[in-house]
């Protein structure tokens, strides 16, 4: 009944058959990327919250001046990159866990991945525009 070909007549090696199908040394990639971005986000988020605390009540000029400061621009860009990277890794797992329709899953995964690039790139460009114009 089954269409499985007779093993003895298969010419491809065992390695050849599994290559590209599984997690050959890539199994932990997602996991590791999530931890790496998490560790970067620890100090960056603390810096960001502290900055927000000191920025509370400041006007446009003060905000512009803060973003334009070299260290702040660099940290903001790093914060945006690691945050959106971390967010899309996490949202990907949430979608994969809870969305069971293949079409919806694919659509939402695309939205998550493209969305992270869209908002990440926009945020970075905004930082550059503010700091380079000021």
């Amino acid at each position, binding site marked *: 009944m089954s269409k499985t070909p007779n093993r003895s007549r298969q010419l491809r090696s065992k390695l050849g058959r599994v290559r590209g199908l599984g997690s050959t040394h890539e199994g932990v990639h997602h996991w590791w990327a999530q931890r790496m971005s998490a*560790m970067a986000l620890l100090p960056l988020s*603390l810096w960001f919250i502290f900055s927000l*605390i000191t920025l509370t009540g400041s006007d446009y000029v003060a*905000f512009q001046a803060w973003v334009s400061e070299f260290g702040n621009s660099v940290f903001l860009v790093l914060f945006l990159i690691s945050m959106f990277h971390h967010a899309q890794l*996490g949202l990907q797992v949430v979608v994969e866990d809870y969305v069971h329709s293949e079409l919806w899953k694919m659509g939402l995964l695309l939205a998550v991945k493209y969305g992270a690039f869209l908002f990440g790139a926009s945020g970075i460009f*905004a*930082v550059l525009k503010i700091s380079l114009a000021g």
Partner: protein
Amino acid sequence: MAEDHRPLSPHLQVYRPQVTSVLSITHRMTGVVLSMAAVLLTYWLASAAYGPDSFARAQTMMESWFGRLVMFGFTFSLFYHMCNGIRHLGWDLGWGFELVRLRITGVIVIISSFALTVMSWMMAYGHVGKL
């Protein structure tokens, strides 16, 4: 897939909620919430890049009572996700799997994320002098 009647593990809802499970799902929920906060951060930066008028509009929006409520929720989500994230990194190193430690670190996460949130808001509005 309708005819697929393979046995499944029982759904999460049949278990009594415990510190461990509630903290776990909260980690996910705060993660999703923080993704929205990330989008708001981009909007905030973009509004400043557009100019003073759009920045003022964004500020008015975030300084409204609803805006502050959302920001407070974002602050808590960030501190919670951060504290519980440290807990996760401990597990990754093989530390803290014992039931007692799981519960203790869980309670520490809850207390410290609330405390850090309130502390940040007090500091933020402390130097402005008004809420």
